[in-house]
């Protein structure tokens, strides 16, 4: 039998106003195992903790129950206090008589009665507690960054600069991400490539950074500090070591009809290609779906023209297995599909484009060499209509319920750039609200209106109708004038909602990182832990966590890096001792527990068991305490009750049930 001390906190008047604290003390004093009971104003204060220490020493207590606020608040405080006084910290249980009692009940008699019952349950539990010791696990001093856009690059650079090895895994043939597709960036209008390329080069040249492009994360196992990751390096068909990046193969490749992903399908690329001129690495890949050699077996021109002999048609996918202490997800975004928005005629007219497509049109390296022209006939447009919130802020099933956050600013940027370069073009923007919180953001938008004469209309567009002459008839509304507007346009640009890159779902599952209904990764705490995933050791960088512009992405990338560095800087991690523990004598070896374990913490071993004199070889479950997170799924699936959870054992919970139902 334990020697239990019960400490009832007044929490000023928070508890004492509704719970008769003295009465609770008097009643629980008579519970089995209780040898000491007292109350105090603030148990969590220095003085309160000293009371606990004193009682432990004087009464030789083996277990503690603190009746106070939520264990989520001060369980750690009281455990530490007990530990300082020489008691195992896991011999402390909390009865939550504040959040679950005094704060929600008004009647003193009722609340006191409930407080007594909650205390009894905690006493019954602590009677069955056993000392537990936190284990230790090692930290692999290497980080993995999934995604090679600006978020991933920045995170990798920051971690590498702190002196740790970093690997970047990027699924496309080059790092750079969405930012490399942009022409100019708000609110300063510098050229995107001019500020991004140096970072890409720096990452590639950094001695601590390894970049896996055209690669994907295939499998993740392990846990914080000790992840094991399989990376699939897809067959590039080009030898990275031999290729000099001369580009002759791309020039000579006869298959040139594949829509360029980098140009959002607005132009074509060859079957052997680098996505863009500044690609890193500057080594092309062969798109085997498009390559004539792969399709028909005949061709092989690239191989013939390659002076370096780098073309390798036989190359196979390669799996690299690496260990990491921390993983940063930076998988970024894509624009949503517009199939459900017939009214904008996106699929009917080439002159209705998304904003990201406009970036390519405006870019000197884009399909029109940077000239603003209609994609249908190459003519210079006179009237351009921008439509905001296409698919954003929609609570229907067509779009996304959130604000994509970047559209107001880039639309102002586009409008401004067009008016600046082509003063003859009329630019109209239909908006619901213009949202420009951010340093120099509203000023930027106002400049578009005041200095560049962009016509902002509060209202939406109902329909874009392509006319027989190739023009577009735009029907919208001006809500401030309360008038319906019919205007002709040569081009319509849709500020299309963004969504997390579809690859994130699979990655989230592999990492057991939770994801919200919009496929954004969930942060551990919306305010206080915004770059940490609830899964320990996994951090979030960039738009995978929520819509962000470049400055915010870079800031968050740095924050994620700091969190990863903070982890990598440790040599050992303490593990949660409340892990599953099998009773080998009861174990049937049936594997049910291993089937439900989300961490792969359960393995089976055949070993000699001495079961009350019967010695035989048995297949029994073994739990890896470093992997087990203590969810308890295995304990319930085990038919014989061989698997139990330390700290939340079957007998402990049943004792609580019994105490409550007494």
């Amino acid at each position, binding site marked *: 039998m334990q020697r239990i001390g019960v400490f009832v906190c007044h929490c000023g008047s928070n508890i004492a106003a509704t719970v008769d604290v003295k009465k609770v003390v008097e009643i629980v004093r008579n519970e089995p195992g209780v040898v000491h009971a007292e109350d105090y104003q603030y148990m969590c204060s220095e003085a309160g903790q000293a009371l606990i220490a004193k009682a432990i020493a004087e009464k030789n207590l083996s277990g503690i129950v603190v009746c106070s606020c939520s264990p989520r608040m001060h369980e750690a405080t009281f455990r530490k206090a007990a530990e300082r006084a020489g008691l195992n910290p896991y011999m402390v249980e909390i009865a939550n008589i504040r959040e679950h009692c005094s704060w929600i009940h008004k009647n003193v008699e009722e609340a006191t009665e409930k407080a007594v019952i909650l205390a009894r349950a905690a006493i019954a539990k602590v009677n069955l507690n056993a000392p537990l010791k936190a284990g230790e696990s090692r930290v692999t001093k290497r980080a993995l960054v999934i995604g090679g856009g600006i978020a991933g690059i920045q995170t990798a650079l920051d971690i590498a600069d702190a002196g740790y090895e970093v690997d970047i895994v990027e699924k496309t043939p080059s790092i750079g991400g969405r930012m490399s597709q942009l022409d100019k960036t708000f609110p300063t209008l510098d050229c995107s490539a001019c500020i991004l390329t140096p970072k890409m080069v720096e990452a590639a040249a950094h001695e601590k950074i390894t970049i896996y492009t055209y690669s994907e994360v295939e499998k993740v196992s392990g846990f914080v500090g000790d992840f094991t990751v399989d990376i699939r390096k897809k067959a590039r068909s080009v030898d990275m070591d031999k290729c000099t990046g001369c580009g002759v193969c791309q020039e000579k490749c006869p298959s040139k009809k594949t829509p360029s992903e980098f140009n959002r399908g607005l132009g074509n690329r060859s079957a052997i290609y680098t996505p863009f001129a500044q690609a890193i690495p500057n080594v092309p890949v062969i798109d085997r779906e498009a390559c004539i050699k792969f399709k028909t077996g005949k061709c092989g021109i690239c191989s013939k023209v390659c002076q370096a002999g780098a073309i390798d048609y036989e190359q196979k996918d390669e799996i690299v297995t690496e260990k990491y202490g921390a993983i940063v997800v930076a998988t970024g975004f894509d624009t949503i599909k517009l199939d459900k928005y017939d009214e904008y005629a996106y699929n009917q007219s080439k002159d209705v484009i998304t904003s990201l497509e406009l970036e390519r049109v405006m870019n000197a390296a884009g399909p029109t060499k940077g000239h603003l022209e209609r994609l249908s006939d190459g003519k210079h447009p006179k009237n351009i209509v921008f439509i905001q919130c296409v698919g954003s802020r929609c609570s229907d099933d067509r779009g996304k319920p959130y604000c994509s956050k970047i559209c107001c600013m880039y639309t102002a940027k586009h409008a401004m750039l067009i008016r600046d370069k082509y003063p003859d073009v009329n630019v109209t923007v239909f908006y619901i609200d213009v949202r420009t919180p951010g340093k120099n953001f509203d000023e930027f938008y106002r400049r578009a209106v005041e200095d560049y004469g962009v016509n902002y209309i509060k209202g939406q567009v109902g329909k874009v109708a392509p006319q027989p002459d190739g023009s577009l008839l735009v029907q919208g509304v001006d*809500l401030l004038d309360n008038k319906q507007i019919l205007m002709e346009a040569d081009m319509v640009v849709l500020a299309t909602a963004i969504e997390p890159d579809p690859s994130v779902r699979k990655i989230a599952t592999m990492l057991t990182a939770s994801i919200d209904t919009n496929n954004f990764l969930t942060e551990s705490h919306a305010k206080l832990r915004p770059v940490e995933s609830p899964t320990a050791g996994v951090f979030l960088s960039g738009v995978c966590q929520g819509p962000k512009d470049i400055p915010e992405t870079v800031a968050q990338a740095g924050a994620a890096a700091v969190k990863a560095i903070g982890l990598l800087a440790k040599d050992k991690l303490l593990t949660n001792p409340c892990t599953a523990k099998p009773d080998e004598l009861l174990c049937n070896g049936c594997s049910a527990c291993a089937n439900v374990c989300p961490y792969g913490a359960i393995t089976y071993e055949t070993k000699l068991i001495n079961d009350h004199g019967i010695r035989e070889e048995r297949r029994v479950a073994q739990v890896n305490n470093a992997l087990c997170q203590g969810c308890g799924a295995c304990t319930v699936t085990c038919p014989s009750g061989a698997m139990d959870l330390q700290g939340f054992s079957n007998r402990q919970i049943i004792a609580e049930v019994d105490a409550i139902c007494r």
Partner: protein
Amino acid sequence: MSHDKTKKQAELIREISGVNPYKCMKCGKCSASCPSFNEMDIKPHQFVSYVLNDDLEALVNSKSLWKCLSCFACIERCPRDVKPGKLVDAARQLVVRERGGDFLSADEIPEKLDPELPQQLLVSAFRRYRR
């Protein structure tokens, strides 16, 4: 109209239409889509505020109620599931219900027919308001 009555009417409209007017974010997509916009005194995007402000009398008496073609463009395109077209529909039903048994008889219809009225609408109207 007494205050209580309008309140009740507003509630009734919400109930019949199943529309939660609080969801409206005043984007104007409905008015931008409406083919009868210019014929209407109260514009589609304004319907919601009339319901929200319990100002049913104006809505019930507005021309808009009978100018709506029930083309459902606003219902289809409303990003917030507010669907002003449903409010119009509900307001019409309210009017019809209040008239009690005062329905048109079949003989009266030919003289009231507007030759511009689409055939389909007529049929659907019969189907809808017969009871």
